[in-house]
């Protein structure tokens, strides 16, 4: 297995250098090598002209390289200052000196971190700044940021970019990993593109257009989630009324996670839920699936009241579920693919006859899913764990679609999936929609939400606070509603909208050029294989 080969990257001091590539292109492996978490089989790394060899992250830190992970590693019940000092007690002690140093760094780089605040009171963006400060505190002069914008709303992204410019001005080098074209173009001084584990080119952000960059990255033209005829009908498929769930938190204080949530989805409609993670989306999904007990409210599917029923009955009634965390909720990782095909539909054909399983039927149907949905696997007897994320997701979607659902709950359906598989997944959801499927779509990717949905609702602190028509809203306005700044029906200024759409036409959406092939599930092989390189991870 070769995850990376012949990678050549030169990063200038005091610049923001972006590393781009689709999921599974080998960015993470490269970062692990730079940070000493993995050893390269061949090749060299030089820092400040001096050849170095890292066997642990400690070596990398000693050389002034620090990494900010995508998932934060902070202790919630500690203050900012304690979190920063933790593990670096030898540097400036743990007392006033350390605190003074934190203030000094915070001021120097304009991070605005308050050392005495409790981490659990901080928002995502503030936590990220604490992570950055933690790395700087340890003397890093080269920062590696792994997809730092994935968890941020557009306004927070801008603030982060201001911080990065500040760091750059102070002589810090930033390596910035992302696959979002417009972000990279706005902040980077230099760009390296990785595809299939190797560097395919460098670009100057002042000269390159988003379209050229996308072509470099993907190496193929891809369909877009844009533009199509409305398939929304008047028949109501899902009606959720007055949903309320209150959960006690760690301290035993009752927290309302869903408050009076009502929504309806018609046949052939995709309803998108926008929101910063942790505002009740997961609970909404689990409530509709019957996995969480309701305090109040009703769930009705196609005229049948499902409020008091268990998850299995709801699945049998026609709810398909693409879970947010496929490893926890969607797959049995150590079971073979055909057993995973049974999961969730054990009471239905072809998986069982009466109370007995039908392994032969399940195997045959798994093979059909593997073929139709282009799941890249050497066979159906291998464990689900040995497939790459994109192929796992294709298997899940194939499984859920195989029982002709009436309602599909798709939570982040393309998260951690490469662009090729992403296009296929979009197309599959669309074609099911044309046949009258109702879809509840949860996504953190605003482009995906705007591109796929027929209607968008915004969830904030457990309430549906705003709604929007995807045709008349920009990601920025949606973003501000997600932070609670706007409520009601949001409609973007036509000028801003036109501008955004122009950017989209020229830029972001060049990732997925508009002539969508209708047979996408079997097409786009060149993009799909990049994903397979993750198979060994």
């Amino acid at each position, binding site marked *: 297995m070769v995850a990376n080969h012949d990678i050549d990257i030169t990063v200038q001091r005091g610049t923001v250098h972006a590393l781009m590539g689709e999921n599974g292109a080998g960015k993470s492996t490269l970062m692990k090598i730079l940070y000493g978490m993995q050893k390269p089989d061949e090749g060299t790394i030089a820092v400040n002209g001096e050849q170095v060899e890292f066997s642990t992250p400690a070596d990398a830190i000693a050389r002034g390289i620090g990494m900010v992970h995508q998932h934060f590693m902070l202790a919630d019940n500690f203050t900012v200052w304690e979190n920063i000092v933790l593990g670096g007690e030898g540097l400036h002690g743990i007392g006033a000196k350390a605190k003074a140093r934190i203030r000094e760094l915070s001021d120097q780089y304009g991070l605005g971190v308050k050392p005495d605040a409790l981490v659990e009171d901080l928002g995502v963006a503030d936590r990220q700044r604490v992570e950055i400060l933690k790395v700087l505190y340890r003397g890093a002069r080269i920062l590696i940021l792994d997809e730092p914008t994935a968890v941020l709303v557009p306004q927070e992204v801008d603030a982060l970019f201001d911080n990065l410019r500040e760091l750059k001005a102070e002589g810090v080098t930033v390596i910035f990993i992302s696959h979002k074209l417009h972000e990279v173009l706005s902040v980077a001084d230099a760009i390296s593109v990785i595809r299939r584990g190797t560097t395919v080119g460098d670009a100057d952000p002042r000269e390159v257009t988003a379209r050229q960059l996308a072509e470099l990255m993907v190496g193929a033209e891809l369909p877009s989630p844009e533009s199509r005829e409305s398939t929304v009908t008047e028949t109501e498929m899902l009606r959720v009324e007055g949903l309320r769930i209150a959960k006690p938190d760690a301290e035993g204080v009752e927290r309302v996670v869903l408050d009076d949530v009502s929504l309806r989805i018609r046949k052939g409609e995709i309803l998108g839920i926008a929101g910063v993670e942790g505002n009740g989306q997961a609970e909404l999904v689990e409530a509709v699936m019957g996995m969480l007990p309701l305090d109040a409210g009703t769930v009705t599917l196609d005229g049948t009241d499902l409020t008091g029923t268990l*998850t299995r009955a709801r699945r049998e009634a026609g709810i398909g579920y693409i879970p947010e965390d496929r490893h926890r909720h969607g797959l049995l990782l150590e079971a073979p693919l055909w057993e995973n095909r049974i999961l969730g539909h054990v009471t239905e054909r072809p998986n069982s006859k009466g109370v007995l399983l039908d392994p032969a039927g399940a195997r045959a149907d798994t093979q059909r899913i593997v073929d139709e949905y282009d799941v890249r696997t050497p066979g159906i007897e291998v464990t689900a764990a040995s497939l790459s994320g994109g192929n796992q997701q294709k298997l899940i979607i194939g499984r859920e679609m195989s029982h002709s659902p009436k309602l599909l709950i798709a939570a982040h359906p393309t998260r951690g999936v490469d662009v090729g598989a992403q296009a296929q997944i979009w197309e599959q959801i669309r074609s099911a929609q044309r046949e009258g499927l109702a879809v509840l779509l949860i996504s953190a990717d605003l482009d995906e939400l705007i591109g796929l949905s027929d209607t968008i609702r915004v969830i904030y602190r457990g309430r549906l606070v705003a709604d929007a028509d995807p045709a008349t809203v920009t990601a920025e306005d949606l973003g501000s509603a997600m932070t609670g700044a706007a409520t009601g029906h949001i409609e973007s200024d036509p000028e801003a909208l036109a501008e955004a759409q122009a950017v989209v036409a020229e830029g972001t959406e060049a990732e997925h050029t508009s002539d969508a092939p209708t047979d996408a599930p079997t097409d786009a092989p060149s993009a799909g294989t990049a994903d397979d390189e993750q198979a060994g991870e």
Partner: protein
Amino acid sequence: MTSPNPPAAPAAKRSLRERIDLERIGLALAAPVLAVLLSLLIAGGLLAASGRDPFDAFSIMWNYGTASDGQVAVLNKATVYYLAAAAAAFGFRMNLFNIGIEGQYKLAMMFAAFVGGQVDLPAFLQIPLLLIVAMCVGGLWASIAGLLKVYRGVSEVISTIMLNAIATAVIGVLLVPGIFAPRTSGTTNSIQTEKISDSSHFFAIETQGGTLWGFVVIAVLVGVVFQFTLNRTRFGFDLRATGRSESAASASGVNVKRMVITSIVVSGALAGLVGLPELMQNTPYFGQNVQTGLGFIGISVALLGRNTPVGIAFSALLFAFLDASGAQLPTRGDYPSEIIPVIQGTIVICVVVAYELVRRYGLKRQQQKVGAELAAQAAAAAQKEVAA
């Protein structure tokens, strides 16, 4: 459009060669074989260190085990161990640690003995009656732990340990003259239930090596039903899914609460059978000197047998062989029989570690294999493209 996947062999008819994966079998056998060898090495070392000849000791054991009277004794013991291990394994398959087999089988045995002494039906009714009584008592006793876990979040490990202690106390309270034991004029000190009726005796096979208990048939039956339920029924699939990932199972529609209660009750019901061979074939009453520790042996046997019906059959035979032949050691030479628990203990410890290592190795190896095969396919496809 060519599919990247090789043309599918009709999945319904997999050839024998496909079904038998030599590498997988090799991996599965490597761990227990290594564990047994290592434990023999340690036991041999201990014997040698105390100035005794380990080879002589092992040969005594081997000779006993290959003689026909030894074989019958081993089979009878293995029958009991197998039932105990099946009870433990059923829980393990769902990640439930039923340590309460000990209490469950004793309580069940006492009730069965009591009923067997009070009721005297024809054998074809009497024997099923006793089996059902024992299974019900075992299952009910275990259900306490299940209910506590589901509704109060009490770990079944803690509650079943406590229930073992409580079971001992309950037996102490019930097994007194006037309740479960007959009022005797009091010449003997040992208190026991009345003898079970003759119709309660299970059939046995007389061989030249002694009496082979007919209960071995029940053990085999349990194994077959166990295997079938787990691999061929919806219930079994739900159970295995819950054992592998509770979160995925609950998202897939498994009612996890009900599953926990059902499986611990089934485990307890199986545990209820553990004491019956002794009661219905050897000692026709339940007394204070009943054999203890079978529940814990069952857990060890299940671990070694990897919770599969075939695996525990082999490990039950091994443990029974060690116990039966180990008892010969002090009588046929100056060897301490304590060496047997040492061997059994090291086997279990080694095997638990080894299984985990093998499991991780197997997963990683498969991922690498899948990666390599896919890379080969991709390369082949690329070549075709170039050629075209």
